[in-house]
């Protein structure tokens, strides 16, 4: 299983042709306390770099973009019921959706952990 990162602070952890997607710890800390999450329905097609989900903190609403094109195969109801889970474990239990990748080739344009850490340090 390999994890990739986007410059919009999403992560995608790929196993076969399905990727689990969430927002990074860096993004969760920047957002502050998450109070509301809106996820796409299972079966919905999402497009790389298009908005896919919404997270709201006390202060503001932010879009979450799809890191790859594909079909949503699962949505994490736990973070809808308990949005604070996104802050508690953003890169684990606080995942957003699972996506069946339409084109695994899209992953090559994403960052690995080392590149993403360097990217965050420069922000």
């Amino acid at each position: 299983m390999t994890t990739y990162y986007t410059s919009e602070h999403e992560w995608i952890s790929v196993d076969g042709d399905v990727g689990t997607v969430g927002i990074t710890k860096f993004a969760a800390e920047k957002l502050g306390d998450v109070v509301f999450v809106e996820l796409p329905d299972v079966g919905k097609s999402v497009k790389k770099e298009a908005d896919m989900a919404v997270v709201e903190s006390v202060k503001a609403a932010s879009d979450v973009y799809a890191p790859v094109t594909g079909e949503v195969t699962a949505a994490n109801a736990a973070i809808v019921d308990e949005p604070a889970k996104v802050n508690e474990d953003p890169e684990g239990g606080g995942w957003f959706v699972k996506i069946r990748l339409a084109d695994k080739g899209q992953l090559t344009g994403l960052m690995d952990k080392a590149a993403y850490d360097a990217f965050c340090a420069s922000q």
Partner: protein
Amino acid sequence: MTDVSNTPLKTTPLHRLHTRLGARMAEFGGYDMPIQYADGIMAEHNWTRSHAGLFDVSHMGPSFLSLPQLGGGDQAHRKVASIVERLVPSDIAGLAPGKVQLTVLLDANGGIIDDLMIGRPPRDDQQGMLYIVVNAGTKENDFALIAEAAGAEAELHRADNRALIAIQGPEAEAVIAGILPEAVPLTFMTFREIKHTAFGNVIATRCGYTGEDGFEILVPAEHGETFANRLLEDPRVKSIGLGARDSLRLEGGMCLYGHDIDISKTPVAASLSWMISKARRERGDFPGADRILRELKEGVPSKRVGIRPLGRAPAREGAEIQNTDGETIGVVTSGGFGPTVNGPIAQGYVDTTYTKAGTPLKLIVRGKALEAEVATLPFVPAKYKR
């Protein structure tokens, strides 16, 4: 709005303290201000509601309007009050000594230029002076207006270089009792000057912007940080940023200037008619009186109300408000999440037909119509010391 992008941000006397405390800073009203500290907005909000929160509000505009000669009892007070009464619809002349009044500066059309506090000093030898506190983002214009109204009759002394520190929450009084015991007998919306051996001349007002009991304390700039540190030494006190200040005031049903009220709104539309005192209504001698008196009699097309979204999604400023038939009836002017309410809350303007508490509304958020209803303000009951 002023373009601040090329202007260096102003800082308050507590700026170094915010940096030391690891605050996340951002521009507000032309100042570099703490938005939140390490604990985050939710924890800071909840701490204020259960203990005591310290807020740096030094960006605001405290000032004194003084006649050339102070003292002279009611007559001197009425004289200085008559100057600001040219700008506000409240009965400033009728303020009891030591009382503070929340009011609004009005333009000739009755539009709200700013909301502000005006206080009458309790001491005989200070009659003829008013303590006036205006908002940060509007203070240059406000001060110019007040100075212009005063002309040669009185002088406006700005005090916005000092530290203005709010301490808010159920434990605020107990904290203050150990540091400024002379402030404890104050009741809600009263103030007094206190000569403190370490902090110099301070002005303590029992007021705030959270719905909690508390104080706002004006301290000489050079003692601001020491005073704040002294408060923070108390384990009941934590520093709170502007993020939680906003969620606290929204739950408290209070207006944020530039959002819930502005020049396009009259106090009647803003549901602030209580500011227009009986004496002033009878005299009709405030700016925009023709329009405002007519509105008081005949009503206004739309009014400010509290709004409670029924789901979990917050509706933010600018969200369209519809009736159940899908017709546009208003707009959200501030909205977010209320940690104490534990749900989304908002304020906005709706057509007057829809202002009754419980009226069903739809809020358009990301193209979807969310169920909501008109709610009574405040969302969290005020706990003022009367």
